């Protein structure tokens, strides 16, 4: 535990962070979803956030948070594998392959169940919430474009979007 701060940056995390913020987020989200200790990860990330220089954090807070979270995840997994097998080298290789497959949802039972659950949560949304969420997320439409097409203000678009996200979050939480 004491080496937490000096832990070497995970080469995979570094690479993902350099390439795309999205890949990094995907990496985190898969692990946050599958790991039972999402709370412990958040707790540890929180502690590290408090320790960081404020100006580093506010330069670009979202990627900064993701990078911290990814590093915490990496160490958690590392420790778990060390505990169970001690085969650091193997686990590291395994993780690289695994992470590269991660961006696509696999056909495993867990992913399928999640997908089902998502479909039903989307169906529960009001038509406007659903439209705003999917047009922005899947069609890449900006708030302005959505505002124009649906005939509501941009600030209403944001309101509907956060409502939609919150609904999905609440109902998927019960699933976990």
């Amino acid at each position, binding site marked *: 535990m004491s080496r937490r701060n000096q832990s070497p940056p995970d080469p995979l995390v570094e690479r993902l962070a350099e390439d795309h913020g*999205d890949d990094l*987020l*995907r990496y*985190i*989200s898969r692990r*946050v*979803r599958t790991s039972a200790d*999402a*709370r412990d*990860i*958040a*707790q540890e*990330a*929180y502690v590290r*956030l408090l320790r960081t220089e*404020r100006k580093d*954090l*506010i*330069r*670009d*807070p*979202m990627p900064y*948070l*993701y990078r911290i*979270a990814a590093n915490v995840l990496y160490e958690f997994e590392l420790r778990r594998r060390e505990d169970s097998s001690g085969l650091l080298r193997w686990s590291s290789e395994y993780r690289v392959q695994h992470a590269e497959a991660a*961006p*696509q*949802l696999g056909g495993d039972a867990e992913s399928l169940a*999640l*997908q089902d659950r*998502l*479909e039903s949560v989307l*169906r529960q949304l*009001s*038509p*406007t919430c*659903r*439209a705003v969420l*999917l*047009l922005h*997320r*899947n*069609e890449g439409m900006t*708030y302005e474009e959505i505002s*124009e*097409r*649906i*005939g509501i203000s*941009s600030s209403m678009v*944001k309101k509907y*979007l*956060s*409502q939609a*996200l*919150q609904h*999905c*979050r*609440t109902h*998927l*939480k019960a699933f976990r």
Partner: protein
Amino acid sequence: MEHRRQGDEHIAAEAAEWFVQFRDKQAVDPAAFAEWLTRSPAHVQEFLAVSALWSTLGVRGSTGYAPEDLIAAARAEQAQRRVVPLNAPRAESSLGASGVYRRRIRRFAVGIAASLLLGLVVWGGIALSRRGSEFTTAVGEQRSITLSDGSVLFLNTNSQVRVRLGRQHRDIDLVRGEARFQVARNPQRPFVVVTADATIRALGTVFNVAMAKEGTQVAVIEGRVELRERGTSYAQPPLSAVDSAASNGTSEIRKSQQARVELAAGERAAVTRKGIEPDVGPSIESVNAWTEHRVVFRDKTLAEVVGEFNRYRLQQLIIDDPGLAGLRISGTFDPSDPDSLVAYLGAEEAVQVSMPNDGNVHLSRGHK
């Protein structure tokens, strides 16, 4: 755990709001966000959770929802929120001082003439290029509007439309009343009309849409349109509609098939609570007539005729005697001249016309 949950919900809501702000590039104050994020581990957790959700939503692949359907459904929901009561309050009418009005109403023809103030037919073509325009007609008023794409919109009495023309779309919300659309052909810009009940999509065509109590009535004069029931086919992904049809038997299958129909010239259909019903609604003849200032009745009951006429008048015709409602009449009337019907009815032996002080015209069985 239980007492924690409420606080978490609140933090989850804030996390979603922050996340949404981040998607709007210039909207975030990073220092304020850093302050929020470092309030507690729960804040970090919820922000990571909403981020993870975002990522999960993106890798789901095809959702089964077409963007145009999503937009149409959202617009329909918004249009319904904005619907206002059908009849404008009398206080807002331009009938003038009520004392003068009351005295005049005792006199048959002059009383009717007062409503001509509102019965004025405005029939000017107005060229428009603005976006998000709204057009309204008062009771008894009709107007035609030429849109910037060359389409012409005829608005009947007591109606309201909202028009948004974009590079890739032409979106019309019929908020209330009736309108006829003469659509300039342009396959790159679908022309979509949305009402509380239905979505109507056209390329180049002329069609009429009327919102009635029972639902939305569509009649096609030229070309073809696609008519959809609002909130069926696009409220659920196509797959699940098929699933439920398969498990619930044939009537469900028919219903899901009827959620979308194509209408050719001369065809009509209505979208009601029961779904899409073919051959329901005003005839093509009468739909054509209203844009020519005519109202056509062929062997209609007095109740139907009165109902149609009342759309054009603040002063209502009221059938006092239920035995009279089924009386059948035929004729062509000019809605801008409302007393033509009253004069016609006054000549009928079976009908007695009276005008008490309530400002309406009452019809009862004749004692001649």
